């Protein structure tokens, strides 16, 4: 048994998809077909999940007027849900080293819920990023449910992108070692979408 089977069971019939965006940390989405419920989680290669990083806090207050915590859905048809576009921010993650990361939805749909557990216990986000440390649950429009995976990467494509990135990083560091001893803080890596 491996991880894929676990996802199968608890999702019903789910597949893992990855999102890549410029200046956006990698996120992972688990999509429950055929109903297309999406669970937004962080992918393993997200900076926040690298060793040495400590999360100070997580906030769902994404702007002065909008907090994802205010999202309230009611009834079978989930009325009242906040509508999300691909770039809509879900939450902000603040690290002890001063870095700040915004996680965006990457999927068009209605926001069902955000994970309040990571507010109280940010460590869950790092310990169990693909399960208990999920960010949010989004329900795409039924008509759009088949097209939401366009623009996302499959697991295989994601892994290929990761490999390329590692090679590129190694090449850069080799080049920079010869020139300078100071290392500038690296800007957030272009996010990779893996669907």
């Amino acid at each position, binding site marked *: *048994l491996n991880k894929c089977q676990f996802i199968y069971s608890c999702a019903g019939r789910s597949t893992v998809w990855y999102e890549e965006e410029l200046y956006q940390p990698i996120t992972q989405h688990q999509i429950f077909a055929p109903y297309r419920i999406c669970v937004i989680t962080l992918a393993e290669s997200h900076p926040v999940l690298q060793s040495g990083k400590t999360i100070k806090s997580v906030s769902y207050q994404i702007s002065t007027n909008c907090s994802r915590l205010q999202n309230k*859905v009611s009834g079978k048809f989930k009325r009242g849900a906040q509508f999300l576009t691909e770039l809509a921010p879900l939450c902000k993650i603040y690290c002890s080293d001063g870095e700040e990361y915004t996680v965006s939805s990457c999927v068009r749909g209605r926001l069902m819920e955000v994970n309040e557990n990571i507010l109280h216990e940010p460590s869950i986000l790092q310990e169990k990023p693909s399960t208990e440390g999920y960010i949010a649950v989004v329900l795409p429009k039924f008509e759009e449910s088949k097209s939401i995976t366009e623009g996302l990467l499959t697991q295989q494509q994601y892994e290929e992108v990761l490999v390329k990135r590692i090679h590129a990083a190694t090449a850069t560091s080799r080049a920079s070692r010869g020139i300078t001893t100071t290392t500038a803080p690296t800007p957030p890596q272009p996010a990779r979408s893996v669907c």
Partner: protein
Amino acid sequence: MFPLTEENKHVAQLLLSTGTCPRCIFRFCGVDFHAPYKLPYKELLNELQKFLEIEKDELVLEVPNPPPKKIRLQELEDGIDGIDNLSQNGEGRVSVIEDGSIASKSSNLNVCNVCLGILQEFCEKEFIKKVCQKVEASGFEFTNLVFSVSFPPQLSVREHAAWLLVKQEMGKQSLSLGRNDIVQLKEAYKWITHPLFSEELGVPIDGKSLFEVSVVFAHPETVEDCHFLRAICPDCFKPAKNKQSVFTRMAVMKALTKIKEEDFRKQFPCPPNSPKAVCTVLEIECAHGAVFVAGRYNKYSRNLPQTPWIIDGERKLESSVEELISDHLLAVFKAESFNFSSSGREDVDVRTLGNGRPFAIELVNPHRVHFTSQEIKELQQKINNSSNKIQVRDLQLVTREAIGHMKEGEEEKTKSYSALIWTNKVIQKKDIEFLNDIKDLKIDQKTPLRVLHRRPLAVRTRIIHSMETRYVDEHHFHLYLKTQAGTYIKEFVHGDFGRTKPNIGSLMNVTADILELDVEVNHFIVEVPICTLNSAKVVLWWGGH
């Protein structure tokens, strides 16, 4: 014995001369016993003539518009003979001609201006025989029947007009027959036709019968007779979505109670005029009320949905519990369709063990309804032989009321489950023993993600009453649970992204998953005598604990 007396003479004379048939005359004279109506039409006409002391060769009929006509009594009698010859023409007068107009085959027949032929030819043996032929051809099995008949709404208008005429005449004689003393058309019709049906079909008429024979009459020629009522009482005739015409019987009758006599008389002739043709028969239909079959089923397949799984017109999984049981019933009962319901349900990949889940199937419009308990047993055997994915027991016919009980108390029931659990970490026997000691554990379950698309988002508190474990190997063990009804077992095992707390994973501090799930449905069996169609003492198939 002729039912009319001296004081009825004037009214009878008036009605006959304006084109009203003998039986309608009886009605408006308050004749409220059956026998006179059942006499043959010809005989009634003769008796009436004798009573009114009319000369045999001439009968004056005065009709305000058009100008008075003289119709010979002899011709009236010939007209009646004409009915007997109808059978040679096949459908005869009662057929509906394509363009909607009904041509009277015999111009001598005087169609009653009040009942439009209903109490003339349409209550006589010839017509009833025709209806019975259709009933027999329909292939229904029945031991009694209820007969329902529907008349065109304009009959109420004509009835009203005739009443006003009669009332006026009685006023002259200071007679006091009230509106309620007038015999209703439908009532008289049933007095005559019920015994004819019984005789022809060999079964009694019973108002409670599930087998219904319905006849609908129409009279296209006079359809517009009612329309003047709309101008006078517009709010009686509001269009409703599913009605073809706004002039329903109820609406027309309501308007007639509201309209003033003077206004009515201005718009509608009193007496009503004589139509050219009799009513047409719009439909003769038979239908049997639904019967109910109940039982329990066990499901042994991990790949079978309870109801057909079809998305976007495409079937995702072959067959279903519902179809495996109902298809056989549908065939044997020769029913049109079915409705399947059960006391709870299980997922596609969950087996149903124990005594089985109670279910009930409503068979709509069954053509065959009488079965011996032996035949039902054989039917059960047939179902069980045809598939190893499900098995059925306690199959029986039940009443509609029994179905209601099936759903009762579902919330109070306790459920038993058997699950095969996988753990990511290596486990020893001692690691699972503590689960045996946990009693009445409260858990909070957010609506599982796998059903979130069709259920409201909510948190439900449920109780795990008790658990029992059986070690299998380093990564597997069996878990037996007794839980409150409505508990999501799969989510209790894997945690559903932490949205069910606590869960097996959190209790054991591992990542756990569920590989197999079985539900044990054990409603206790109660023996209660049921007055089913079989009138036998039958094992009741539901019960709770």
